[in-house]
């Protein structure tokens, strides 16, 4: 993968912007904190010190989960768009998020205590994403039209929405409340102690992506050519869906469903980089996805006193016009 000077400038700029956004994010909250308080909160933590507590339990986990979710969803979107050869594909549109939501709903609303634990919710979200991912993969073997596949994804979303509504109708008030809170999504509930497991899953998912870089580059030129070159298409598909399920399930488990990032960011990176090289796209989506969500969340924190906006509403507010632009651009 030869990197041109222009690309190098692009990556360096995005990297610098990300660093800037991270600093902005860390200091965007209502309580004023210093660098020393951040450092002490990591290495010399005193639970009685409110400033340190805010730094350790709020600002740092919120920043990390925003980066992980942004990067993870953007990379998942990139994989789905290449796999289904469709720029409008993404974990949210294809219904992979819905799979996670359905399994989490079943876990929370059926009352089994294991499924109501942290690990239970993560496992449910991952398992749900995997089931729906492979279901879509199976259908894509028979349905060649990418529009039809997107429609099926949307229908899966509606179908699971209907099942969830039915489950809500028969569940107890407390179970219903727990699920409603989860569906609202939030970047604020992640704890410092959960960061190792989040980062572990994230690193596993992204590491698996590196094995997909070359096969995906080949897949872009067509499935027949991929087979001629001796690559196993089935394996590429299974690996892509597994990575998407891990990254989407991880994000959905810790933040709830987040819309549009998975669709909008990969398209933006393709437009900006004008490349089909998945090595570059992977790096760009990692950086740009993290930048997008960190910046969005910083803005949310800065305007919170005037307009309180949930993260999902904010990403939709930016993402939806972006998608319309992409569609219009393609129509031209």
């Amino acid at each position, binding site marked *: 993968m030869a990197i041109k000077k222009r690309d190098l400038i692009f990556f360096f700029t995005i990297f610098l912007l990300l660093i800037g956004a991270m600093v902005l994010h860390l200091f965007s909250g209502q309580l004023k904190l210093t660098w020393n308080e951040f450092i002490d909160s990591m290495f010399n933590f005193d639970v009685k010190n409110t400033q340190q507590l805010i730094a350790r339990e709020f600002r740092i986990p919120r920043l990390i989960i925003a980066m992980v979710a942004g990067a993870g969803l953007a990379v998942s979107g990139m994989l789905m768009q290449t796999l289904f050869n469709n720029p409008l594909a993404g974990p949210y549109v294809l219904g992979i998020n819905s799979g996670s939501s359905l399994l989490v709903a079943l876990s929370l609303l059926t009352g089994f205590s294991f499924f109501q634990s942290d690990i239970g919710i993560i496992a449910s979200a991952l398992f749900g994403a995997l089931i729906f991912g492979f279901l879509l993969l199976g259908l894509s073997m028979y349905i060649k039209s990418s529009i039809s596949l997107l429609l099926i994804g949307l229908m899966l979303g509606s179908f699971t929405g209907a099942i969830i509504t039915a489950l809500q109708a028969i569940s107890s008030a*407390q179970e219903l*409340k727990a699920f409603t809170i989860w569906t609202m999504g939030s970047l604020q509930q992640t704890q410092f102690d959960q960061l190792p497991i989040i980062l572990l899953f994230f690193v596993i998912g992204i590491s698996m992506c590196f094995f997909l870089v070359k096969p995906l580059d080949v897949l872009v030129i067509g499935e027949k050519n991929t087979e001629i070159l001796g690559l196993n298409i089935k394996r590429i598909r299974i690996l892509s869906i597994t990575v998407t399920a891990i990254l989407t399930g991880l994000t959905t488990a810790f933040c709830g469903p987040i819309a549009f990032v998975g669709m909008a960011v990969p398209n933006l990176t393709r437009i900006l980089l004008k490349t089909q090289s998945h090595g570059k796209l992977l790096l760009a989506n990692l950086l740009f996805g993290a930048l997008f969500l960190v910046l969005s969340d910083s803005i949310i*924190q800065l305007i919170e006193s005037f307009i309180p906006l949930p993260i999902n509403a904010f990403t939709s507010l930016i993402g939806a016009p972006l998608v319309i632009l992409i569609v219009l651009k393609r129509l031209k």
Partner: protein
Amino acid sequence: MNFRLIFFTFILIFTACSDSSSGNKKNSFQNQIKYAKTLEILECGTAVKVHIYHPENKTIKRFYLTPEKNTQTPKNYIRISTPVKSMITLSGTHIGMLSKLDGLDVISGVLDKKYIHNLIVLDGLKKKRIHAFGNEEMLRFEAIVNSNAEVLIYSGFGQDFPHAKQLEKGGIICLSNYDWKENHPLGRAEWIKLFGYLIGKETKAKSYFSSMVKEYDSLKKEAKKLTRKPTVLSGNVLGDFWYAPAGESYFAELFRDAQADYLYDETKGTGSVEMSLERVLAENRKAEFWLNAGFSTLELIQKSNKKASYIEAFSKGKTFCYSPNMNLFWEMSAIEPHHVLSDLLRILHPELIQKNEMYFYQKLN
């Protein structure tokens, strides 16, 4: 003949009901409401005008309640023939108010039974004397039309009741209830008078209300003598935000009357204020009491809000809520604000209220 006509016209002019501003108190519509801001009840003889004010845009819905069959309905008023014999109530607070008037027999429909505490209503549901119409998002409208109810009362959340016009064509009059938007707990309770007038038990409603006000005021007076104000945190996190009662809400008034030091006492609004979890923790970490956390056990709170344990009132076991008996609270707290105040005083100032039992609240374990 002409003399007779002039005489009757004269009598009619001087005996007909007019607005209270005209000065003739005996024959004018007298406002029966003292505390409620979104409700006005004007009474003159057997005629009653009810004005329900939208809390945000201040538009008025006008109703004319009368037992007379031949009187004319004033312009812009919707006529309701009293006493109402069959009523659909879509909020627990309505059930509480009707229970205080021994008027539960008029209820012909409610929401889902999982939101009901009252045993008479539950029994009515079991025996199918009362119908359950689902939850507010998925009401079975055809069943409502088929129920032959005369009036449907719902909690107003800003917009008109869906299908209100169709229901009115079917003979069901929809009334919005904004008790939850009242900024005084007594204003909230005063909505019982509307139920009283609707079912022909206005005297009972007024009598209950005035005796309850006396008890409330007496507790408030006792509390005023206290010098210490314990710090209180209220509400919980939902999604990205913590929702706490706004400074002009009835709960903020209850906190003031219970001599609590509530940090968001001066915020604007009659509903909730939304804040980030981080801000709430930074400002309330050392609050002595956490009230209305929205769950029935500490474990459930921790599950929904993983950072709850950093609030000292949570870790020190000073978290209280009505959630262990949620349906009872939503049914009765609006009409028994003196009991809510008593519970708050028992929690915050145990030296003032000696008894152990509380009406609605429990210490969470």
